[in-house]
């Protein structure tokens, strides 16, 4: 399954294949090749460390889109119990590109909402590659309002290339749906903790990304436009995407430095999909810590602080 490795991961693919092969051999006969395996494993580890210590922003972008990367439903499964998915916007349809519902998170009922991509061709199409239509955003808003009604915190998971650019989406008011979410989330009277788990694609991401805390996984991205889109507009060539990725400052680390997000969640060696369980534990701890803190605030203080946070975004000079 070498197509599940990115270009820069190829050296790891070869090593892993070799280890796998040796393991099979050692199963077959009693030859003691454990030593060789452990030698290769430590080589693999060093190699992985080396590769991941020197990632450029374009490589991080590719990791954020990695075909094996855990998606929202994976995190819900790893972080929550008793998930009850809720469907539909009550106006037009259910959008499978956004999932949401009730669940227990460490003993606390919460509303979880996130973009959802598909794994295989069929589910990718069903999930529209994680690109929501207006009904997805309207479903998300309906669930958030429900969370407010029943006084439960909202956890959102962001992972989309962007809102779907299609005729039907435009007809049903893609822009209005996004705009309304931004407005209503700014004043929702329950805590909202947002986590970028993969691609934070522009308005389509932000539409479920306004909250009290924004966390980002180490190899996720968050941007006003995709590097390809930016490159094709400003350089007039999508080939310049790596340059665009660099100058757009879309990685968790850079955005943290710019003060645009609150926290970077370290991923396991080799990125999220190599050990989703341990990553989920780390992430869960951080979400829990923030929730505990936010739960002590009155709804008024909570929304007031959220408002101040939003008003603080921006860099300019005043004469």
């Amino acid at each position, binding site marked *: 399954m070498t197509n599940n490795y990115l270009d820069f991961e190829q050296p790891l693919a070869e090593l892993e294949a070799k280890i796998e092969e040796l393991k099979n051999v050692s199963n077959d006969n009693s030859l003691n090749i454990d030593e060789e395996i452990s030698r290769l494993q430590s080589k693999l580890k060093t190699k992985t460390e080396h590769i991941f210590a020197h990632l450029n922003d374009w490589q991080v972008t590719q990791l954020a889109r990695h075909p094996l990367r855990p998606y929202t439903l994976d995190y819900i499964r790893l972080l929550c119990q008793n998930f009850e998915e809720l469907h539909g916007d009550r106006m037009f349809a259910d959008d499978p590109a956004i999932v949401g519902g009730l669940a227990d998170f460490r003993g606390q009922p919460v509303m979880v909402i996130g973009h959802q991509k598909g794994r295989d061709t069929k589910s990718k199409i069903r999930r529209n590659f994680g690109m929501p239509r207006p009904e997805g955003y309207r479903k998300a808003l309906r669930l958030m309002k429900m969370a407010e009604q029943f006084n439960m915190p909202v956890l959102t998971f962001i992972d989309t290339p962007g*809102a779907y*650019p*299609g*005729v039907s*989406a*435009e*007809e*049903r*008011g*893609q*822009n*209005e749906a*996004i*705009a*309304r979410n*931004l*407005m*209503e*989330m*700014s*004043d929702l009277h329950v805590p909202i903790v947002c986590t970028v788990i993969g691609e934070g694609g*522009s*308005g389509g991401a*932000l*539409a479920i*990304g*306004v909250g009290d805390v924004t966390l980002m996984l180490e190899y996720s991205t*968050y*941007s*006003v*436009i995709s590097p390809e889109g*930016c490159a094709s*507009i*400003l*350089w007039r060539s999508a080939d310049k995407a790596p*340059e*665009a990725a660099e*100058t*757009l*400052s*879309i990685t968790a680390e850079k*955005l943290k430095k*710019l003060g*645009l997000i609150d926290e970077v969640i370290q991923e396991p060696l080799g990125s999220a999909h190599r050990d989703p369980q341990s990553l989920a534990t780390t992430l869960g701890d951080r979400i829990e810590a923030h929730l505990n803190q936010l739960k002590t605030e009155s709804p008024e203080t909570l929304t007031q602080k*959220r*408002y101040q946070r*939003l*008003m603080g*975004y*921006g*860099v*300019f*000079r*005043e*004469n």
Partner: protein
Amino acid sequence: MSWFQKIMSSRIRTEGGHKKRNVPEGLWSKCPSCEAILYQPELEKSLRVCPKCGHHDRLTGRARLLNFLDEGTAVELDAGLEPEDPLKFRDTKKYRDRVHQAQKKTGEKEALISMQGQLKGRDVVACAFLFDFMGGSMGSVVGEKFVRAAHHALETRSPLINFASSGGARMQESLFSLMQMAKTAAALKKLKKAGIPYISVLTNPTTGGVSASLALLGDINVAEPDALICFAGPRVIEQTVREKLPEGFQRSEFLLEHGAIDMIVDRRELRDRLANILRLLCDAKNPPREPDAIITPETG
């Protein structure tokens, strides 16, 4: 090509000569829609609407506001805000240079102008995007100026009116620009809760992140005729769905039909119509007091 041009040697023949304007710059212009030749002062008088076919030519920024507000009442707000370059953004040009260029071209510091003034005697706060300034794109300064205008409307309890004309969020400020969508939307929520009207006027074009935030959040959304209003532009959609889009797709009339806007208003009637709408909205809450109306005894 005429027979006369054909016999001219190619050395002296100028290609595309038919496109050349033979009129002094700035006195006459051609309507891009009906190609009528229009006398500039007359066109300005009709607010850049073609008197022949009604085509709405671009009118943005300062000129838009000064034409809209009652004469002599406009006072500019937050004129001192200027963009920074937090990312040291550079594509084929530096962002800094693009900003300087835009400032030189337009004589303005940024892509949004905000003013307080009066509309038919009523105090209002009004903002207008300036499309000629980097496509009216929204970065930190545009977001901040809009929010300050909203706060000013809140403090003075006067209605807010915005004239949108924008290509969307400004790429060169990356996530800072994206966050302006949330920032402006949050400020509008404050107005809504305080019961202060916000009228959004959508002019050609209003697209991308600006359409997905402040521009479609009006209590009343008004569009000028035939304005392009969309989230994803026609070209982006064509590339995605790989089909030609229907005529009139994403134009004001299309949006009206699909329920996204309240009305389409000719620019020449905007002042009257908005003044009337604001009167109806504001007077509903504070009806002009007529003594006998207050002490009418209830029956039954």
